[in-house]
Structure formats: C-alpha cells, structure tokens
C-alpha cells in the first residue's frame, strides 16, 4: 500500500507537470504504472458496484459517456476515463485526478472505455465485473492486423469478466461470444428491432462474417432493442421501454450506442433501473469531444467530426450527408491515425459530389484529394499544412456553417488551434 501511495503521488506530480506543459494525457499514468504495476488492482478492486469495461471498434466513447450519465442519473457515483485516451495508462492518468493518496476512489462504479488490445492488458491487472462489447470492424489494421484477431481479443476479455456481459445481437463476431463466458456469468443483449433492421446495412461492412455460432434472437427479458421512429427519435424496448428519446447527437450510430448503454445500465442496476430517469439522462448527454462537436465560430457552427475507419467515415457521411455544408477533410497518417490510408478506398464519397469539398489537408491531403477525384467529387484546393488550411478555410467560408472531417492527430492539432481562438474546453473535459 505504501508503494501504491508513492506511485500515486509520483503520478500526480507528473500530471501537474504534464498539464503545465500542455502535454498528453498518458504520461502521468506511465509514471504511476511504472512504480506500481498493480496500482489499478489496488484502487479499483474494492469498488462497491464493480468495474464495467466498454470495448469494441466503433462507438466506445459515446457509449461510455451515455452509460455514465445513465448510472449517475440513478444516484450512482461513477469513476470514468472520459478523455478518449482509452489505454490502461490513460485510465490511471484519469484516476490520478480523483484518487487521494490512500488509493480509495470515491465511487461505486468504474466505467472504462478501453480499446480491444488494452482491455485485455487491463483485465490481466484487474478482472472486470462487467463487459459491454459493441462491435468488431476494420480499424487500424496495422495495429490489430486482422479483424478475426480483434474478435478473439474481445472473446478473451469476456472470458475474464466475472459477473455479466452485454453483447450485440446484430454483430456475429460479438454475439457468438455468448458461448465463451464463464459459468454463472449473466449474458444480456442489445440490438436493432427486426422492424427496422433494414437500416443496418448502412452501418455494417461488406466483409465476410462467419455466422456459425451466432445467437438466435435471445430471451426478451434480457434484451434491449432499438426501435427507430424517425431521423431523431427512438425507443429502447425491453422490460420497460425507454423513450421516446431525442438525442443531442445525430445519426443511427448514436441511437445504437444509446441502446447499448441502456442494456448495460439495465444489467448492472437490475430492479433499480428507472426508464423515466433513463429517458431524461440520455436526452441530456452532449456529444463527446470530436464526435459531432460543434464549435461556435463568430456565431456560426463549425462541426469537427472524427473519422478513423471505413465504417466510421461511412456513418459520418450518412449522418451529415443530408445537410451539406462547406467541407474540409484532414488526413494524417501518424500511428494514432492508422499509418495506412488504404481504407479511404473502402468509403464511398459520392454523397459529397453535389456540394464538393472546399479543401483537403494533412500529411496525406493529396491522397485524400486523389481519392475524391476517383469518386468525381470536386475538390477546391489541397493545403497539406493544417494551420494554413484552417486559416484559409475559416477565412474563405466566414459567416457560413462549416464542417471538418479529420483523423485523430489532425483533430488534436486543429482543436488546439481552435481552442486558442475560441476558448474551448480542455481535451477530455466537458464543459458541463
């Protein structure tokens, strides 16, 4: 315990220094983890509620935020890692902000967003009580190599979960995991109601999924299904319906995230789950940083949209495509972006053809322009330098709504510039 306190103290110091330097969110976690590798276990293992891990390829950040809101609306104290730094070190870094040197968190639950590989690393340190597994899609194949392998990582995470897992009935990579959970571990489900299943293909990829071992539609008692009413409004059906809800974030993907979060909240709260509270909580959730975040640029909205894989970019284009505005696309190829830009050829950009793209930017700005050329989308100009691109984009489109699709490091860069100008919340800190 003395070692943990020392580790936490050192981490807190590193956090202070790192914030002064405006640095990243993982360094303090690295310091703490180096001093006490078991710091996670010490701090999280005794939480009265439990530890819920959210993992999968797409929608982790939004779903985690919704789930935290749902639990807090039911009076639960929740520790979470809202920074989108979904690696183990990011979790420790987030913890350092809240934990006293004694190492006891003032929380009932830890709800943690972890990427697939790091979720396993985390589980090796401390077994989660619950896991919410969203989907498996191609994402940054240079990191995970193969989606079969990604599915395998999530299966192993489910095997190590001690109390309950929540699975996606519509993704066969996820649904077949129900056969792998430990004895006595409860399985509950989320998915799209068969009545509106025709909406799904827009979200799913044309890859080859092994349907062997997929679940039959499970017992309705443990299932939360999305029933879409119109573009904005939906109900999550189940033991007691949640909704109709209108989210602040647009699109089918966000509705599915809300359904997943609702299923997980039902699983952990049991009888205490209150549909009316849940409806209010979901309606109040603001879009997380970079997931449709809107920045006020002299009275006109600038939307920053993070894109990182074919499914995500396709969803983003589908979500925003019906309201074309002046558009910029910024593509970097650093490690955090995915170094291979081949995936841009698995996205159809035809919805941008009518309005065109004003500007492409980033290290691979020319490759993005080339991709658009092959889909016959007019491109105004290419400016690889992000600062110069942002400057002229804002300048040339002053007084009009604008939108920037960007990869992770491009977004970090642009957001820093925008923050300096328009006073945005610090990365990972919500204004609410």
């Amino acid at each position, binding site marked *: 315990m003395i070692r943990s306190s020392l580790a936490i103290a050192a981490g807190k110091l590193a956090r202070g220094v790192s914030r002064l330097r405006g640095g990243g969110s993982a360094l303090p976690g690295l310091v703490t983890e180096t001093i006490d590798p078991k710091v996670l276990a010490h701090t999280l293992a005794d939480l009265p509620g439990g530890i819920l891990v959210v993992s999968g390829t797409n929608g982790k950040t939004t779903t985690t935020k919704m789930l935290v809101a749902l639990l807090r609306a039911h009076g639960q104290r929740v520790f979470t890692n809202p920074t989108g730094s979904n690696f183990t070190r990011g979790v420790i870094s987030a913890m350092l902000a809240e934990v006293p040197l004694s190492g006891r968190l003032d929380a009932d639950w830890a709800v943690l967003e972890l990427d697939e590989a790091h979720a396993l690393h985390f589980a090796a340190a401390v077994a989660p009580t619950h896991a919410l597994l969203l989907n498996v899609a*191609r994402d940054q*194949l*240079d990191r995970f*190599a*193969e*989606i*079969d392998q990604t599915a395998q990582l999530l299966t192993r995470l489910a095997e190590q979960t001690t109390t309950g897992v929540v699975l996606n009935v519509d993704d066969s990579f996820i649904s077949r995991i129900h056969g792998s959970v430990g004895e006595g571990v409860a399985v509950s489900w989320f998915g799209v109601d068969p009545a509106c299943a025709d909406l799904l293909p827009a979200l799913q990829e*044309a*890859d*080859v999924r*092994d349907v062997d071992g997929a679940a039959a539609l499970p017992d309705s008692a443990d299932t939360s299904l999305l029933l879409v009413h119109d573009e904005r409004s939906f109900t999550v059906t189940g033991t007691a319906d949640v909704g109709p809800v209108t989210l602040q974030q647009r699109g089918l993907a966000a509705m599915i995230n809300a359904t997943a979060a609702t299923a997980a909240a039902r699983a952990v709260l049991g009888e205490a789950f209150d549909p009316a509270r849940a409806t209010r909580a979901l309606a109040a959730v603001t879009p997380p940083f970079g997931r449709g975040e809107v920045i006020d640029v002299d009275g006109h909205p600038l939307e920053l949209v993070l894109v990182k894989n074919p499914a995500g970019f396709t969803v983003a284009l589908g979500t925003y495509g019906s309201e074309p505005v002046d558009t910029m696309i910024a593509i970097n190829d650093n490690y955090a972006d995915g*170094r*291979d*830009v*081949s*995936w*841009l*050829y*698995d996205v159809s950009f035809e919805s941008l053809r009518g309005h065109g793209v004003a500007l492409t930017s980033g290290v*691979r700005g*020319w*490759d993005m*322009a*080339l*991709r658009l*050329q*092959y889909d016959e989308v007019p*491109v105004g100009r*290419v400016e*690889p330098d992000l600062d110069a691109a942002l400057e002229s984009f804002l300048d040339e489109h002053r007084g009009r709504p604008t939108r920037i699709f960007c990869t992770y490091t491009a977004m970090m860069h642009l957001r820093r510039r925008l923050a300096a100008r328009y006073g945005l919340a610090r990365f990972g800190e919500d204004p609410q």
Partner: protein
Amino acid sequence: MTATADPEPAVSKGTVHLVHLYPREMSIYGDLGNTRALASRLRWHGYTPVVHDHHPGAPWPQEAHLLLGGGGQDSGQARVQEDLAVQADRLRELAADGVPMLMICGMYQLFGQAFVTAEGRSLPGLGILDVTTTGNQTRMIGPVVLDTPVGQVVGYENHSGATVLGAGQEPFGRVRHGQGNNGSDGTEGARTGNVIGSYLHGPILPANPALADHLLELAATRATGGWEPAEVDDTVADQAHQRQVRRLLKS
C-alpha cells in the same frame, strides 16, 4: 458474378473487361480501389470498362482482359481456396497467354508455389509465380517505395508471410524504403510475363498512374488490338506520389 457496364462515351475506343477475383473475401485493405482506378482511367482514356466481380462458385466471365486480386484475412483465403482450385488451369492458361494480372498480398501468395505455415505445413499455390511464402511471427508493416521497370512505386505493406523468389524469378521491384518480400534480400513482389504479384496496398494503382496505364495498355491491346491513350491530368496523383517518395527516401 455481377457485371457493371459504364455509360458509353461519345465514341468509345473499345470495351475492356476487368475481372476482380473474390472482392468480398479478398479486398480488405482497399484493394478494390485498384479496380475502381482502372475503370475510371479507361473512361478517361476513351474506352468502355466492364467490371466483373468473380465470387467463389460463380461461372467464369465470358471475357477477361485484365485480372485483379487483393489481400484478405486468413479466413477469407480459406474461403476462396476451393474456387481457386476449380479455376486453376484456366488462370494458368490465361497467364501463359499474356493476360495482364495484378495480384496483391494474399492473392500474390496464392499465385505462388506454396505457402508454408508457421507449423511447417505446406499448402500448394497456383504456381504461376515462382515464389514460396513462409508464415512468420513478425509482421512486416509500413510505407514502401520501390524502383520498378515502370518507375518508382509507392504503397503500404502489411503481411506476416515472408516470400522468397525461386531461382531466376524476376521481382516486381527493388525496395528503396520498407521491407518487401522478406525484409532481407531487397526484392519486392514478383513478375512473370504480364503477371505482377506485390504486397503493396495503398491501394497501389491510384497513386501510381504509370503502373495503372502500363496494365491498361496490355489489356486494351488484347481487347482492341491497340492502345490509344488520351491526355489525362494526373497532377493530384503525381503530387500524392512524389510527396510519399520524398518523405520516405529522405529518412
């Protein structure tokens, strides 16, 4: 099999049939972009492209002037193996007859002599290219620049198999940046006649228009007896290409 015919240009210089092998199973890294690029460029050059998607078990297209294939997951490769055995003799004949082919990553491996798994089991390939691939623990991943007979080529490799050329087998290119076939002998891909195998995604053709037009010249000549290219503005492709070359060869 499905075929998509593009609208006829005012006066077409001729129809060229492209066959993409196993687009569902074997095109996980955007390799369909190669087919898209060739179809667009054919149109820009004044030809009429017809793209045939060949799926496992489907009948072979009536006409085939150029064949393309891409990379897949292990499960994808397992799924096409049976159909590949059915089509094996036809593919060997077409290759021997000079039909241009571009086989990327997983399909490059399947066009070789054999794939030896990490456990030492040898799975036979089509033997169109004299290469043998061995399963490896370490993946070769990253951006690549090659010197090839059609000029410098840029792309992105992501493979765990290490490929060795047979005696006398010509490589597709020489590695200037990246790992190539095996990370040690400086070769990348293989070329026999008009059949090219390579590990490069990117996808390889959009940012390397010289390679794309080289393949189209071969295909159009087979289809129409000649190649009459039009002026194509490749400013954007050239910029994307040159920036990668400069950036990678600088380091």
